[in-house]
């Protein structure tokens, strides 16, 4: 159930290095994600998680190494991206539904089709949002849901999520994780997400990958498969079972295994 999927590689990063000015953020980073996998990327603040996502999305370029997404250069695949800063990523001059339909607008889809597909996705997720309003007329949680709709409406091959659920309340977040894994598996989407909440990672992901060091890389011990006795979609009740705690412990251990205690005087 938690076995690593073999098959077509969705993302392959080989010996990637990236600097911003004189600060090297990534060095010698190797990462491979298979098609249809759901992978959680862990790391401390400033470790380079967002940098990894931006390199995969083709929004910035590596200084050294290679990145390929579904066998091509970054920036060509059909990607949905959920940014952490929901409000800042939405277009304030567009209504909620126009923001949600952005991926369809730029490909030239007719207005009726765009509206229909946004509404269909909302129905699948059982959401009720004031789509006719502008983003500044919505709450933070509603804005983040618009971002999620925008990322998923065109059924992308790859979904990148950068702390994309932070504005949701706990219940909504659990429901969203449940729905997202269902959508991902039904549509064969590959998902790479970052999260500070280990419980989210364990519930959603097939595998946890941990960035370590400065500059960051992924050591072999930073890859942890997540074992779940249930088939997808994993039931919400799993988070109350002992096997969930065991998986959580394993991920936690992989994160903290290199931590050194503060030496006593």
């Amino acid at each position: 159930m938690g076995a690593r999927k073999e098959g077509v590689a969705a993302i392959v990063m080989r010996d990637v290095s990236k600097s911003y000015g004189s600060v090297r953020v990534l060095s010698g980073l190797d990462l491979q994600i298979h098609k249809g996998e759901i992978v959680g990327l862990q790391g401390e603040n400033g470790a380079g998680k967002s940098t990894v996502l931006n390199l995969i999305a083709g929004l910035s370029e590596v200084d050294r190494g290679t990145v390929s997404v579904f066998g091509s250069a970054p920036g060509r695949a059909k990607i949905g991206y959920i940014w952490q800063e929901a409000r800042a990523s939405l277009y304030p001059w567009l209504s909620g539904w126009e923001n949600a339909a952005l991926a369809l607008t730029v490909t030239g889809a007719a207005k009726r089709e765009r509206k229909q597909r946004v509404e269909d996705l909302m129905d699948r997720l059982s959401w009720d949002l004031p789509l006719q309003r502008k983003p500044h007329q919505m709450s933070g949680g509603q804005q983040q849901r618009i971002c999620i709709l925008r990322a998923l409406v065109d059924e992308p091959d790859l979904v990148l999520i950068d702390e994309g659920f932070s504005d949701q309340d706990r219940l909504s977040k659990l429901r969203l994780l449940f729905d997202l894994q269902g959508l991902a598996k039904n549509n064969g989407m590959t998902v790479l997400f970052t999260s500070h909440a280990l419980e989210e990672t364990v519930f959603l992901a097939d595998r946890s990958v941990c960035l370590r060091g400065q500059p960051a890389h992924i050591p072999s011990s930073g890859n942890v498969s997540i074992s779940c006795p249930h088939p997808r979609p994993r039931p919400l009740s799993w988070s109350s079972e002992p096997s969930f705690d065991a998986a959580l412990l394993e991920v936690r251990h992989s994160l903290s295994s290199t931590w050194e205690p503060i030496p006593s005087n």
Partner: protein
Amino acid sequence: MGWVVALASWEIVAFATEASGLVPHFPAVWRELLGLFEGRGIEIDCAWTLRRMLLGFGLALSVGLPAGILLGAIPALNELFGGWVSFFRSIPAFVVLPILLAVMNGGEAARVGMITFGCFFVLVAYVAMGTRGASRLRIDVARTYHAPRAYVFFQVILRDALPQILDGARISLSLALILAMVSEIMLGASHGLGTRVNDSLAGFDLPKMYALILVVGLLGSMINLIGSVVCLRLVPYADSR
């Protein structure tokens, strides 16, 4: 309540300076103000001043808007010319009036030229700033969804810059009114609010001069109000970005 306080303050100052007569009492100013609108041609003078203002502003906008966009969008251009924009923006427009008079054929061209000069660099600066400051994240959103470059530029960068562009336009428009009157005073003109103010000052007709100042204030307030309404309509989200 504000008006009551203003009028009361006016009368206090008028009484205090009664001996010099520098500040006439408000009733005298009010009578002159009413007289201005009772067939004494103030509307024609307003129209001339507005005409110069709008011509000068319009010329500045037609060249300043694309120039500002280019400066904001192309870093190399900003490196070359950004400093010059700041330099010329700092020069009071009336200083160049003698040069304009010598170069241009006729006073009217020089008046409009001065207004255009004054507004142009303010507009370029605001437009460039707005274009350069367009949200990197929103540009990345469009790029992630493979938006064409034209979409990214016109529908994201310029839309994001629009509030700042409109701010620059409003400031330039107010400046254009001031420069229109200054040009009328410095160069003289057969019609215009500046000419009327100058004539009443030369004749030491202070109640009329103050009445004309009130007219200018009302005109400026109306232009500002129209600008605010236009901005609210075009960029209702400006404060929430």
